[in-house]
């Protein structure tokens, strides 16, 4: 099947004919040997079969010689190529074996060469004859195809022969021979130079074939088969043959392959990649974007957790490592264990119920006096042999988590911005829709149906929109509806804000009364109400937003914005309530502090009066009176909020999605309407709500992580569970959205929200750190005036004096202010340059567009001109047509030949000739038609028959020609 490629390669064949025959002869030699030996009946049979076939062919030889011109030539060439391939194969099998007696063999080859040559030629002729016999009445194209088919059969047989022939011999020769056969490995050093040369040429041909394969007029299947074969061949021998450049190329290819494999491996290592891909295929990329975002969050939380756990919690944990018996590490690194000092002990009053589940669930009791919260940490400056600066580390980790988060978010945003580039979606609305609306990641028929439907509806909508924008009559109604929707949403927000405010006030009242007098519902009212509102209000917004009639992508952004406002309002109401609570605690603290001094004094006085030299009375740490420790309280609140939030999410998932799906699925058999298609149906995945839930969850983590170091760990757990739970829920209980749309660019929207939330959540944390003095008897900063004093302290005591001096100079406002000024200037400069770049880009784009339009115009003109020419030519042709139809037939033939040459020969792009205006018309497209006409002897070239197709083909051909 490579014959067409070698239409012009006659020289090559002539040059290598001899060698080919030699190879062939070897093959035959072997066969002869085998037949004599009669070792394997199978092989001998096949050989005999071929012989018989050839005999039968000779009988029919005479019949087949009707048309023997080009076709025969080509087929013979093809045959030659095949032989060459066979010969190469034979050679590879033999290469090893031949190494010793190669020369003698060659001599033999020369002796027998002539006889073999004769027999070969005979065979070739036979083949040709057979081909032609088969295709007697067909047209020429079909002829060729059939010939190909025949040859394929033939080739297969030959291959078999070669294989079978090599088998017994290989068994004779020994094990290494077999190895060569199996692996197909060729050792170039074992080949003679001329064989190498040949192999190289074959390789080049294969490469050429691969390159030119696309333009061949073959059926697809054949093309694929050929391509695969040639690629295999090239791959097999390229490396072996390559020396110098080829070898380098081969190495490069291997390297590329390795890189590709490595990429695949890396992709396989990305956690949950397959899960997300599967979801993407079922639900489209917008749902998948949520899961990708979730995974990204997981990564960030992993690092936050690593920071807090490694630098804060582990040094403070003692009991865990005593279990591991790392006494050295204990001594080296650890702080004091539980129960050693008052802040690490549950007070006596709470001890009774400290292990109750209800208490632990509220993070009181043992959970409160553990490493999970701020209050447990000791203010000892350096602990263990390593002098680990615990308070400093605590502070720096708190700052570091926030700084790291900022960095990551901003970096990701910048990268996304780069990727998205500057695309204006407005200018080519319909072509964008036409060519880019399909989501190629969809792998599910149902989703594909949905997508199909949504594309059609989007087209309808776009057309309607276009019409409406021209008509411009309904715009007032739409505007009114949009305003109304926003008004309703605002009402809803105000209502929910008031409800939360009301609940918070009530809870403060409860707190003043004492929480023990109230029920569990009342105690957890704030969290419950916040979670419920956060769950139900978005649904209401969603319903309201159907009024607005936006594109789903825009609608998603509006929805996100609204939920954002809701959550933010809720969160800030909560924070304000917390601030009130902090103030209350601080008042309480003052009283307690005074009481403690009194208590200590009385203790001292009591002991002092009896015996001044007696050792001081040891008091169990549980009995020491405590301050209220507002930091732990804040941490507890956040942890409770997170827990209740997580719980509501999971419960909603189970009830709203799973239970609904189960009911719909199993009640459908005995219900009076179709539950699946109609009324309750299955739920859709709520992208906006879930994303915002995630973002706000993260915001709470950032806010509370300073006061509750356990928060990143908790969040990690939550994200991990929700990854699996939500993946499962999506796949098992949700249906794809009715309007599946691509989530293009919305990723940066999420990121922007995350950044805003990060900023908003660091504000209260920083505010509390800077303005409120830490509690006097708990936490790493107890006894200091402000929490950040720890840095100054470290600078003074742990660094050399010159360093602190430098630092004090550097922190001088005189130095800081100019620096800030410089930074602002730099930012301004960068901003303006980027703006100018953007403008330049837009201009370039416009230029390209203009150029395109110009080209289009040119093409149109050219096409028109070609049409004119054609018409003229046709007129003249019709004049001529009347006198001589025979002449016309000849002309047709000529044109056909030309076409053939054009297709089979070297020049791929025919230029439009001015002298023959009808040539391009007949060029590429109507080849089949011509062939049919040509083969048919009854064909009479009527002008009317041809005029129609010509008319059709004019534009396309002209376009091709001028492109």
């Amino acid at each position: 099947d490579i014959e067409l490629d070698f239409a012009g390669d006659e020289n090559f064949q002539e040059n290598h004919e001899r060698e080919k025959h030699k190879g062939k002869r070897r093959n035959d030699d072997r066969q002869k040997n085998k037949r004599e030996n009669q070792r394997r009946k199978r092989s001998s049979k096949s050989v005999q079969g071929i012989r018989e076939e050839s005999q039968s062919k000779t009988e029919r030889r005479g019949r087949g010689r009707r048309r023997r011109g080009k076709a025969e030539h080509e087929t013979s060439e093809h045959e030659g190529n095949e032989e060459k391939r066979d010969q190469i194969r034979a050679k590879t099998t033999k290469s090893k074996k031949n190494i010793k007696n190669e020369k003698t063999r060659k001599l033999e080859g020369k002796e027998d060469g002539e006889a073999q040559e004769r027999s070969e030629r005979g065979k070739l002729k036979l083949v040709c004859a057979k081909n032609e016999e088969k295709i007697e009445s067909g047209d020429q194209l079909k002829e060729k195809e059939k010939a190909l088919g025949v040859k394929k059969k033939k080739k297969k047989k030959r291959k078999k022969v070669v294989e079978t022939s090599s088998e017994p011999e290989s068994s004779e020769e020994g094990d290494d021979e077999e190895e060569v056969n199996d692996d197909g490995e060729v050792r170039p050093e074992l080949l003679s130079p001329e064989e190498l040369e040949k192999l190289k040429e074959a390789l080049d041909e294969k490469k050429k074939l691969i390159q030119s394969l696309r333009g061949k007029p073959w059926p697809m299947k054949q093309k694929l088969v050929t391509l695969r074969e040639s690629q295999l061949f090239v791959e097999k021998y390229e490396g072996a043959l390559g020396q110098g450049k080829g070898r380098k190329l081969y190495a490069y290819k291997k390297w590329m392959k390795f890189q590709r494999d490595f990429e695949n491996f890396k992709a396989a290592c990305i956690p949950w990649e397959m899960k997300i891909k599967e979801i993407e295929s079922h639900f489209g990329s917008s749902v998948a974007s949520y899961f990708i975002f979730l995974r990204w969050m997981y990564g960030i939380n992993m690092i936050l957790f690593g920071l807090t756990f490694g630098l804060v919690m582990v040094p403070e944990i003692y009991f865990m490592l005593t279990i591991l018996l790392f006494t050295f590490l204990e001594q080296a690194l650890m702080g004091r264990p539980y129960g050693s000092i008052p802040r690490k002990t549950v007070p006596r009053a709470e001890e009774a119920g400290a292990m109750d589940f209800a208490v632990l669930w509220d993070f009181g009791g043992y959970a409160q006096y553990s490493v999970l919260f701020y209050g447990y940490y000791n203010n000892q400056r350096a602990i263990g042999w390593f002098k680990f600066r615990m308070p400093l580390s605590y502070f720096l980790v708190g700052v570091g988590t926030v700084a790291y988060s900022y960095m990551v978010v901003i970096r990701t945003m910048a990268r996304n911005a780069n990727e998205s580039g500057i695309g204006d979606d407005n200018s080519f609305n319909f072509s964008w829709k036409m060519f880019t609306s399909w989501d190629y990641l969809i792998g599910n028929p149902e989703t594909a149906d949905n997508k199909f439907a949504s594309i059609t509806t989007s087209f309808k909508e776009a057309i309607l929109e276009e019409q409406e924008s021209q008509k411009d009559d309904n715009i007032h109604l739409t505007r009114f509806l949009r305003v109304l929707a926003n008004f309703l949403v605002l009402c809803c927000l105000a209502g929910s804000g008031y409800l939360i405010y009301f609940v918070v006030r009530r809870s403060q009242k409860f707190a003043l009364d004492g929480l023990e007098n109230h029920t569990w519902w009342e105690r957890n009212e704030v969290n419950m109400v916040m979670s419920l509102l956060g769950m139900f209000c978005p649904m209401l917004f969603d319903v309201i937003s159907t009024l607005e009639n936006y594109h789903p992508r825009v609608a998603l952004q509006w929805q996100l914005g609204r939920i954002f406002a809701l959550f933010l309002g809720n969160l800030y109401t909560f924070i304000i309530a917390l601030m009130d609570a902090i103030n209350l605690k601080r008042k309480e603290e003052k009283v307690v502090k005074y009481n403690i001094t009194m208590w200590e004094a009385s203790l001292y006085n009591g002991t002092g009066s009896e015996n001044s030299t007696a050792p001081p009375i040891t008091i169990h740490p549980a009995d020491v009176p405590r301050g209220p420790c507002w930091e732990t309280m804040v941490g507890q609140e956040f942890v409770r909020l997170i827990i209740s939030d997580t719980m509501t999410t999971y419960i909603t998932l189970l009830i709203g999605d799973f239970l609904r799906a189960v009911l719909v699925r199993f009640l459908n058999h005995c219900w009076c309407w179709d539950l699946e298609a109609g009324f309750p149906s299955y739920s859709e995945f709520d992208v906006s709500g879930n994303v915002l839930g995630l973002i706000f969850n993260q915001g709470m983590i950032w806010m509370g992580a300073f006061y509750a170091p356990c928060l990143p760990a908790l969040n990690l757990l939550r994200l991990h569970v929700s990854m699996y739970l939500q993946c499962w829920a999506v796949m098992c209980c949700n249906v794809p959205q009715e309007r599946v749309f691509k989530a293009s660019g919305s990723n940066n929207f999420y990121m922007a929200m995350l950044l805003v939330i990060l900023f908003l959540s660091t504000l209260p944390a920083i505010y509390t750190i800077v303005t409120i003095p830490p509690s006097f008897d708990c936490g790493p900063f107890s006894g200091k005036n402000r929490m950040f004093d720890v840095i100054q302290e470290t600078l003074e005591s742990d660094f050399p004096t010159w360093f602190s001096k430098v630092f004090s100079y550097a922190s001088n406002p005189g130095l800081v202010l100019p620096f800030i000024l410089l930074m602002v200037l730099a930012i301004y400069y960068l901003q303006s340059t980027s703006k100018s770049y953007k403008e330049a880009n837009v201009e370039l784009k416009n230029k390209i567009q203009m150029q395109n339009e110009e080209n289009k115009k040119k093409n149109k003109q050219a096409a028109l001109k070609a049409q004119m020419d054609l018409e003229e030519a046709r007129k003249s042709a019709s004049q001529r047509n009347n006198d001589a139809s025979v002449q016309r037939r000849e002309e047709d033939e000529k044109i056909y030949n030309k076409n053939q040459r054009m297709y089979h020969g070297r020049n791929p792009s025919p230029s439009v000739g001015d002298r023959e205006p009808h040539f391009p018309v007949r060029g590429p497209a109507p080849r089949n038609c011509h062939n049919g006409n040509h083969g048919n002897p009854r064909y009479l070239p009527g002008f009317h028959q041809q005029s129609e197709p010509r008319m059709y083909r004019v534009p396309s051909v002209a376009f091709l020609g001028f492109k």
Partner: protein
Amino acid sequence: MVSPAIALAFVPLLLTLIIKYRYYFVLFYRAVLVRIWKDCVTGLSREERAFQYVLTNSTPGDPDSILDAFDYWCTNVEFISNIGPKKGKILDRLLLEQSPLTVLELGAHCGYSTVRIARVLPLGARLYSIEMDQGNAAIAEKIIRLAGFDDDTVELIVNPSDEVIPRLRSDYNLERLDFVFMDHWKKCYQPDLQLLEEYGLLGKGSMIVADNVLFPGAPKFLRYLRKCGLYEWKIHRATLEYSKGIRDGMAELIYQGIK
């Protein structure tokens, strides 16, 4: 004791449900509550009431005016699940394109769809209409005669469809049905279709139109269509008759035979 604030937090959910499913609530009210109320007050069945209205408000012998009267009554007074004007137009179009000679209608109810089909049939065509319920059939008969169609054009058969279909060939000398309209019990769509196939009443090119395949819905029917491969089919999406917001569809099948 649940606190009132928590109860208040459920208000958005309630609002959401009400707004989202308002059409279903309206439908429930009109089709069930009003019907029960009127049944108690008048002592007549719904179909009889509809017939009374049509009798007094339409021109005898004019199918269009009868249909209009029906539509008016069903939109503004009570609800009867006829095919309705919107889907009716699609049905008209299909009938005009196909111009069938033998038509089978499953489920005449009170004759609305029978009149609708009969008025666009070509000359010499014959419509067999099957209705299971005696009372409904009596009213349908009256409506059909009121519209001016005689026994030659429309034949009303009072029997369940699964009994009639096997006897169609023997009792009514039917060889092949050109057009079948299904609007009876949604659960019978699939078995009846299979019966039609089984008794060889469908030829290549016969068209079957099934109403209400999405709401109330015939999931088994649709599943069967997807699976069997005997039909070329599509669903005309529309809304439920006399209601704006409930989506419904009408399936159009063309029998292709076994390939």
